[in-house]
């Protein structure tokens, strides 16, 4: 079972939900930090990585002595990652999508592929939680290949939680695709509602069952309650707006560890997620 924790807006509490859910379930959990641009789950899991390795993608390189400067490689590249003005081609690794088109099209077999590092995977273990984090190399623009490489570590027999990046564009899609259930975390503000609507559109497109968590909740009915009611979207749990919770977060503490009264909230969350994920597959 794969559960993804996502949100349109940043800073709504995705990582808080991911680590607390992982802790509250009290079973062997694999947590993948797919927010590879700014991975934060490791702060809460603590400790040093038990191993780490570089993730590479293939990019082209020219054997200059074989190149006849025909320019076919530049013509096939949709991403302007390889350019040639009747010259030996110039290659821009950060624009390359590793499609392999230039390699296949070169009539002289003058192009071959080399490894280009785009980031690394770091492995952590704390109690029953195993965390694998993707960490994008600074100034490398493309997160999806690193997220895909991280997701190769998913064992479908196990419970897997994916901590997604914010937004609705390609890194989010790369994370959410193939999940069994998606938890959308939001806050009861106009920004929270606006970005929740975008996230809901994204999730509907992927056709994966989902529910909403309202974080920083105030007593009474909010604009999020109204929206979810109207759209028939289940509200899974509400996390109260308390400074104490924010302070624990600021210190990198898992809430259910330092304030056990919240444990039942996350156990309740897990029971609802299981029920909703199961019902949708019947």
């Amino acid at each position, binding site marked *: 079972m794969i559960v993804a924790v996502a949100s349109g807006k940043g*800073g709504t509490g995705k990582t808080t939900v991911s680590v607390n859910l992982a802790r509250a379930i009290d079973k062997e959990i694999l947590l993948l930090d797919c927010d590879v641009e*700014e991975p934060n789950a490791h702060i809460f899991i603590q400790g040093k990585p038990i191993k780490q390795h570089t993730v590479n993608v293939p990019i082209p390189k020219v054997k200059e002595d074989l190149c006849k400067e025909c320019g076919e490689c530049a013509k096939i590249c949709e991403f302007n990652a390889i350019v040639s003005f009747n010259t030996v081609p110039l290659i821009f690794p950060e624009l390359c999508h590793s499609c392999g088109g230039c390699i296949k099209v070169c009539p002289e077999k003058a192009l071959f592929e080399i490894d280009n590092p785009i980031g690394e995977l770091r492995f952590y273990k704390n109690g029953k939680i195993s965390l694998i984090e993707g960490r994008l190399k600074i100034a490398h623009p493309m997160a999806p290949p690193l997220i895909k490489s991280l997701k190769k570590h998913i064992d479908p027999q196990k419970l897997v939680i994916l901590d997604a990046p*914010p937004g609705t564009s390609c890194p989010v899609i790369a994370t959410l695709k193939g999940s069994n259930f998606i938890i959308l975390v939001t806050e009861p503000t106009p920004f929270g509602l606006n970005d929740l609507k975008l996230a809901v559109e994204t999730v509907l*497109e992927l056709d994966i069952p989902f529910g909403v968590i309202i974080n920083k909740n105030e007593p009474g009915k909010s604009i999020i309650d109204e929206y979810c009611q109207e759209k028939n979207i289940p509200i899974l749990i509400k996390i109260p707006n308390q400074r104490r919770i924010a302070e624990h977060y600021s*210190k990198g503490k898992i809430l259910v560890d330092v304030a056990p009264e919240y444990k039942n909230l996350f156990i309740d969350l897990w029971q609802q997620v299981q029920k909703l994920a199961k019902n949708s597959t019947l």
Partner: protein
Amino acid sequence: MEKQKIKEIVILSGKGGTGKTSLTASFAALQKKQAVLADCDVDAANLYLLLHPNIQKKQPFVSGKLAQIRQDDCTACGLCQEYCRFDAVIKQSNPSRDTFRIDPIDCEGCGVCVHFCPVSAIDFKEQECGEIMFSSTQYGPMVHAKLHIGAENSGKLVSLVRKYAREVAKEKKLDYVIVDGPPGIGCPVIASLTGSSFVIVITEPTLSGLHDFERILQLINHFKIPSALLINKWDLNPEVASQIKELGQKQKCLLLDSIAYDQSFTEAQLKLQPVVEINKELHDRLELIWEKIIENIH
């Protein structure tokens, strides 16, 4: 005549939810109509909620292509599936003949299948990936955009929003472009950052905020752009706030100010207004910060 040099001020945070948009809207309100406002958080744009733009012109953002197999012409040879590195070609086994189709969500738009299809049975059409809007607000002109759900090329859209914002500034003889940037450090952030004049990083005193500040600062310094730091909600954790200050100092990121946690940020958002419009104290404080920003842009 001396060529006008437009200065682009980009507001970033690394971590999401630190107050980028609330503060961008406040600077927009304080800059006395010398700037064009640009929302470059194109996949979760919020600035419009506070600035209430009056949209004057819209244009589609067309970028990137997607492959689509014409079933009538396909001979089901399977070469496209063999050549696709993005697992976007899906084979359906049928008793009579296998069929192949391309999942539009997985298609990278590389065109390799299109080029090599032996019977040219694959179409490759440009996609409308979003929309760019030219608007006016009570604080000056605004350029903003909406990326379609799950669309690629957010970096290209960001670059276009910035380009159009500079053009509007030039046309209206305005000195500045204020850019509300996206969270993270990936392609839309790099597109928001490259070639700009000055970056303001809004961060919060949490261990996550500190970690993400370090990464965004590495990115900013990689592109050699001068930067300044504004710590929001500093009193949430004064210890981490001073660690953030130290790191900023070490990395030559100018400290603008530290603002305490203030409920008016949420109140202003609920009223759909920049916070400086409802809180006089914050108005005066942020006005000084804005002056400091302008003094430091060369």
